[in-house]
């Protein structure tokens, strides 16, 4: 069993009328079966309302399945005695950094999590040091978070999660509010955590170019996993991605346009460098 595994996962929102009677049932997750291996970098794509955020909240036991099962590191998330352990195993980072930072000084904010776990003071500081180091924010440790840029704040939020020593972090659109540099900083930091610290990463995003280095991509639609594979396998299906209200990286789309015009170029190009190399071979 992987670090995150689901079996026939279903989640339903109930809609109530003014008297409190159930008016409608909205199935946000509809029979998801996945198994994520420890240490992988996973991306989840899907249009707004496809169920990906609802899925993410299950990993952290913020919500529990209506039907089916979710295991995090072998623990069933719907059993109450597991909740704290599940949240320690899988940390979450959300879209808006301002909603996640509570400390008035960067290092205090990062220490907040482990302090709540009852970690001894000396060890808290060790964890804070290491977490800030891992997202390259050590030089800002004595700063006030509200003076930082969006990308820096988001890296502090990630450090706060890392300080709890999770095996897995789930990031729900962590770059949606950031400028191009902030986006790059955050994605780079997350990749480093995955490679160096072997932390399993589950990244939810609407930016296709953030996904090209993932080990595996899941695409969700109407609460179901409708595509899964490597970024190459997923993005080479340009028409299908567009039908799902999604997109592909610009380099992939240019290659797709070239192929449509009869130019014999690979369909599974992902990066700028690959496209440039392939086109130069056609000269």
């Amino acid at each position, binding site marked *: 069993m992987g670090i995150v595994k689901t079996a026939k996962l279903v989640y339903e929102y109930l809609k109530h009328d003014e008297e409190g009677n159930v008016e409608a049932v909205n199935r946000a997750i509809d029979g998801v079966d996945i198994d994520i291996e420890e240490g992988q970098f996973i991306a989840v794509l899907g249009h707004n309302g496809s169920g990906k955020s609802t899925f993410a909240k299950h990993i952290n036991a913020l919500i529990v399945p209506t039907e089916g099962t979710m295991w995090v590191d072998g623990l069933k998330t719907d059993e109450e005695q597991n909740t704290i352990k599940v949240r320690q195993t899988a940390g979450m980072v959300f879209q808006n950094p301002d909603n996640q930072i509570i400390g008035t000084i960067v290092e205090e904010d990062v220490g907040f999590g482990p302090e709540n776990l009852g970690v001894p003071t000396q060890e808290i500081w060790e964890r804070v040091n290491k977490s800030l180091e891992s997202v390259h924010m050590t030089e800002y440790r004595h700063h006030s978070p509200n003076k930082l840029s*969006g990308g820096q704040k988001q890296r502090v939020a990630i450090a706060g999660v890392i300080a709890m020593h999770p095996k897995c972090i789930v990031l729900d659109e962590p770059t949606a509010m950031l400028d191009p*540099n902030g986006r790059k900083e955050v994605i780079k930091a997350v990749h480093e955590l995955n490679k160096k610290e072997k932390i399993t990463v589950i990244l939810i995003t*609407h930016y296709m170019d953030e996904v090209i280095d993932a080990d595996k991509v899941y695409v969700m639609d109407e609460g179901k996993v409708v595509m899964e594979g490597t970024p190459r396998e997923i993005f080479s299906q340009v028409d299908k991605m567009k039908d799902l209200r999604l997109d592909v990286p610009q380099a992939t789309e240019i290659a797709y346009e070239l192929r449509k015009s009869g130019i014999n170029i690979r369909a599974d190009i992902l990066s700028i460098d690959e496209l*440039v190399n392939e086109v130069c071979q056609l000269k």
Partner: protein
Amino acid sequence: MSIKVENVNYIYGIGSGFEKQALKDVNLTINDGEFIGLIGHTGSGKSTLTQHLNGLVKATSGAIYYNGQNIYDEKYNMRELRSKVGLVFQYPEHQLFEETVFKDVCFGPSNLGLSKDEIEERAYQALKNVGLDKTFYEQSPFELSGGQKRRVAIAGVLAMKPDVLILDEPTAGLDPRGRDEILDQIALLHKTEHITIILVSHSMEDVAKYVGRIIVMNRGEVLFDDIPKKVFKNYKKLEEVGLAAPQSTYIMNALKERGLDVDTDAMTVEEAATSIIKALKENGGAGDD
């Protein structure tokens, strides 16, 4: 009809010890009917600038003229300015509050002293202009999807019949199709209603695809102000200030360096593909088979 920004400076927290100059000698003319992209890293001053344009924030020094009148004149009607220069904030759907979509859009114009018929007429028109289907009008705005909510919020500003519409990252958090739909709708408004549009965005691909002019802010100053092709030529400088160019710009420049005679001005997927095909054919390469 235009907005003229003259030597505008804006300093936060004067005398508090945390003084910060957010705008520095900004000079701009925004002409009627333009579609402008306003870009800059977080904290570059672009949001502060937009808040000056409709009088939400008052410049520390300098002047702003709307249609030739100084908005800082004592007798100037600031209230009217705010209905003429509409500002759609980031995540505007957080400001929805009414029971139904239609009532929410009516809220703005109902504060203008208009007749009930006129208010409703404006609300219908605004909802039509953002492409929201009639079936949603009587629904609670809170039951709509993210993209639909955002349309309602934009309609609320459009119902004020602004001459200038400023949108602060209107596509943040939307899926790719949602982004295209909102921006296509805004482009259509620009074309059919002749509204001046100022689009604040972090997406260089979006800016490249839609706008006719880009203003780049950096540390409170205007760094570039030109047509997109010319601005993106400075992609190395843009990176230095925390921005970037569209992916196509990088692809075309790399191909040119490797000796393929492509047009480095190509910014969109279509332009890039067309230029590569042409260059390959001229090269006698694989383009012909």
